[in-house]
């Protein structure tokens, strides 16, 4: 009877949302770099060319709590689409172990690949309507640069993190990271491939901490 009670306790505890037992909050602002110039698509040898305005997504930062946390039992599948010859979203933070789908929403081929040490793969050419949608599991922390072998200007990033506690800033750099466990940690702000800022933080249950990354 006692054992059954323990099992029930474990089962309930394991499916409880993280936010219910980890209640610290960090908010603040990250100083973002200037907006990138929209890429120029090379169309020299294309008989058929469509319009030349490519969307550019403003720079965003990823703020995450660094530390040793237990792996999440199940992770939702994420998507990085190819739409209008760009990656959408251009930056995707995921916890290690996440499966990412790469749907092609254009009416032309794409060939997504990465030579990054954190994940090396080449999906080859596949049609928009092909099922299943090609996927990759990102199980090693690090930055993965996505490219297209057909469209040289296309570039996307997947930031694979060793933590379940992360959030993307808005375009002004503001962030709010909630449901954090109490304790001493390092709060990091990933800004680009060469810039990650960090600050030590001490979190207490029920407390909202304000941290800026100038």
């Amino acid at each position, binding site marked *: 009877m006692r054992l059954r009670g323990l099992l029930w306790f474990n089962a309930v505890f394991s499916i409880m949302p993280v936010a219910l037992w980890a209640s610290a909050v960090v908010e603040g602002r990250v100083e973002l770099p200037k907006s*990138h*110039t*929209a*890429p*120029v*698509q*090379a*169309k*020299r*040898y*294309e*008989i*058929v*060319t*469509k*319009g*030349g*305005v490519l969307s*550019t997504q403003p720079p965003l930062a990823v703020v995450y709590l660094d530390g040793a946390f237990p792996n999440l039992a199940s992770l939702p599948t994420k998507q990085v689409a190819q739409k209008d010859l760009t990656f959408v979203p251009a930056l995707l933070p995921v916890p290690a172990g996440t499966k990412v789908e790469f749907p092609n929403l254009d*009416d*032309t*081929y794409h060939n997504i*690949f*990465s*030579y*990054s*040490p954190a994940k*090396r*793969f*080449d999906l*080859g*050419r*596949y*049609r*928009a309507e092909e099922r299943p949608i090609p996927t990759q599991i990102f199980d090693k922390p690090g930055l993965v*640069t996505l*490219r297209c072998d057909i469209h040289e200007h296309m*570039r996307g990033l997947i930031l694979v993190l060793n933590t379940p506690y992360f959030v993307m800033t808005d375009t002004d750099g503001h962030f709010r990271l909630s449901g954090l466990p109490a304790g001493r940690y390092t709060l990091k702000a990933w800004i680009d*491939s*060469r810039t990650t800022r960090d600050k030590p933080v001490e979190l207490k249950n029920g407390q909202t901490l304000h941290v800026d990354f100038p």
Partner: protein
Amino acid sequence: MKLRVLSLCAFACTACAFDIDDFFDRLDTALTISAFHDNLRARLSGTLDLEFYNFEQPPAGLIISDVDNLFNPRLTLFLDAQIGSQIYFFAQSRLDRGFDPSDNGAQIRLDEYALRATPWDDGRFTAQIGKFATVVGNWVPRHLSWENPFINAPLVYENVTSIRDKSAPVSVFDFIYGPYYYEKYAFNPVIWGPSYASGISLSGRLDRFDYAVEMKNASLSSRPESWRVTESGFEPPTFSTRVGFRPNEAWNFGFSASEGPYFRREAQSTLPPGRDIGDYKEFVLGQDASFAWRHLQVWVEFYEARFQVPRVGDADTFAYYIEAKYKFTPQFFGAIRWNQQLFGDVSNGYGQSTRWSPDLARIDIAVAYRFTSHTQLKLQYDYQHETTAPGDDNHLLAAQFTVRF
């Protein structure tokens, strides 16, 4: 211990490769400029190719060299500029030892420049003016070193025939046996590489069909010097067209045709009396198909060409190739290409017919490794065999290291 050192080296190389990629990505950002809220954007990019060839004399294709080992470095710079959504400009400049591999000294050229207008966003119509690659066939989109699975071009784009554009043959024998007496650069292939001739083109897509038509100042077989508008005028021009059908993303079919005079101005004095360079034309019909799925790509092209040759008559040739590329791993791919060119007969004036050039077959095999997304090494072996002449077989080994930025 050895394993540990090897692991350390592998880790260092990987880390280094990642740094190189990061460096080139930053360089790309630095070489892209914009103004007027991104409505005017320009990007400078390029490739550095270090090529090495080992061959038997005479070298096959358009290689011009008296020595059997040739080092052929090439720096290519591209400028791509976009003004709003409708205007696009591009230019290509090269610093190398000649348009085709040669043992000449260094030269710098402006190989391509073109202004393109696309009035509608759906791509139904595009107009382009300048000096740019031909619309014929399906090889042009992959002719640059980074996209080309091989180091050289398919046989039909580089095999010099008995056709020469600077002077007319004085007899059938002069025409057929000319290649034994004159230097190779006097002669022309059916299509000279990507044929960056000057002119205008109109192109677009209508549902699953696409079309392109161009008016250029030089025929497909014309040499690079003839492509400049200052060198050859449009009297008379060369017209080329291609109609494509794309049932889906995997398949692409095309039909091409071209017609235009192939003699240069200086050949006028060698023509029969009363004839003009406009009286002798090159006619080309082409059929192409391509297929791509996952890691496999296949291309095939067929060309039927006719040259109107003074004092000889019509000289016909048929050439084709089939090419396949397969990526074995994300960074390693292999390619194989089978080429053949067959020549028709011409009358020798004594009631007999003679083949006007020896039939050829060539197989090209290449492997390539991409160290990073900006650096690539290709190795290639070619075996060429003259199937209707006692000519020697020809072997070619080539290596090409490319840095793309």
